[in-house]
């Protein structure tokens, strides 16, 4: 960013979500583009964790941000853009899984694809020698095997660091239900890792 831009206030990266949302509502396409730049990667990663399929995750992230654009006037509090757009994306991801499961149970080919879809996780770098490739793969397979809603809770908490209250809001669950799902997810993952050892 040039100094001139900073002085002229064009540094979109420095603007709050609320400011960008208001500008975008005002018809400023560049402001919405800045929101896309800010959120497309975190949304894609969230959705990838939930649906465990790269192409599907790209489609869902794309749809979620287009929906966000179309409903921009509907956000009561523009400062809450992040949880709002995460809500759109995670619920769409859960819908896609529900539809996929329905199709899978309709056909006899219910087992197809899961094993191919799993390596969605980040590859460990060489500096992460303490944690082996096999451990990463095991954990990502265990996560993929969690019930979808539990998986969504876990990802929103551990990767995106939402509070229990916010996760409840995003997934339309009570805070107590979120606590329960998270505890069960963690225990299932922990026990899976123990069994793997």
């Amino acid at each position, binding site marked *: 960013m040039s100094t001139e831009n900073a*002085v*002229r*206030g*064009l*540094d979109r990266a*420095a*603007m*709050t979500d*609320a*400011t960008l949302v*208001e*500008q975008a*509502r*005002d*018809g*400023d*396409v560049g402001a*919405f*583009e800045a929101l*896309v*730049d800010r959120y*497309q*990667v975190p949304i*894609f*990663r969230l959705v*990838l964790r939930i649906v465990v399929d790269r192409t599907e*995750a*790209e489609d869902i*992230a*794309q749809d979620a*941000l*287009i929906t966000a*654009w*179309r409903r921009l006037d509907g956000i009561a509090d523009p400062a809450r853009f992040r949880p709002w757009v995460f809500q759109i994306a995670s619920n769409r991801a859960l819908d896609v899984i529900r539809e996929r499961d329905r199709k899978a149970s309709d056909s006899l080919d219910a087992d197809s694809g899961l094993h191919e879809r799993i390596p969605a*996780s*980040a*590859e*460990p*770098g060489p500096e*992460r020698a303490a*944690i082996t490739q096999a*451990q*990463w793969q095991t*954990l990502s397979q265990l996560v993929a095997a969690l019930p979808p809603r539990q998986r969504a809770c876990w990802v929103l908490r*551990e*990767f995106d660091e939402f509070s229990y209250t916010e996760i409840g809001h995003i997934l339309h669950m009570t805070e107590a239900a979120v*606590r*329960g799902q*998270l*505890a*069960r997810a*963690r*225990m*299932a*993952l*922990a*026990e899976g*890792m*123990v069994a793997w050892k």
Partner: protein
Amino acid sequence: MEVTSDRLPCGRGLEQVWNGIDRGPDDHERTCPDCSQARLTLADLSVLTREWAQQETSDASVQPGGRVKAAIMDVVRTEFRSGQRVPLEHSDWGELSIREAALAKVVREAAQGVPGVHPRRCRVAELEPLTLEVTISVAAPVLNPDLLSTVREVIDGALTRELGQSPTLNLVVEDVHDDH
């Protein structure tokens, strides 16, 4: 250990055990076999999860292809709502007008010329006489009584230059942001 609820057989909640992973075991956890075992398994998971999340944050390869943003912005540009037309003046050639969005753009570009000011919305509140409602967010360090008149002058100057008229301006500081 079979866990079907979020409670261990000893009655303690798993969440409580998880929250205590980063400290030493408390009195109950030291003597309770259920809790000791749960702490061990959860501690491993805690480390692994944190490493995974950190690794992913720094891993540029886990991101959507360029087609995603391109498709989003195509739709946004196509659907861009230009808003109502605002009549500017009557002349022998008929009525000149400007779209509300274009008017807002003039206002925004002027306001963001003032350091620390992030313009937000510009709405036509009244057509006769033309009255604009403009909201801004201001960086905390530059917030002072003179700022509003500076912003007002800058916007008024731009509108006079671009449109040849000087609408009534309702300027509202809607938010204060940190200075970056």
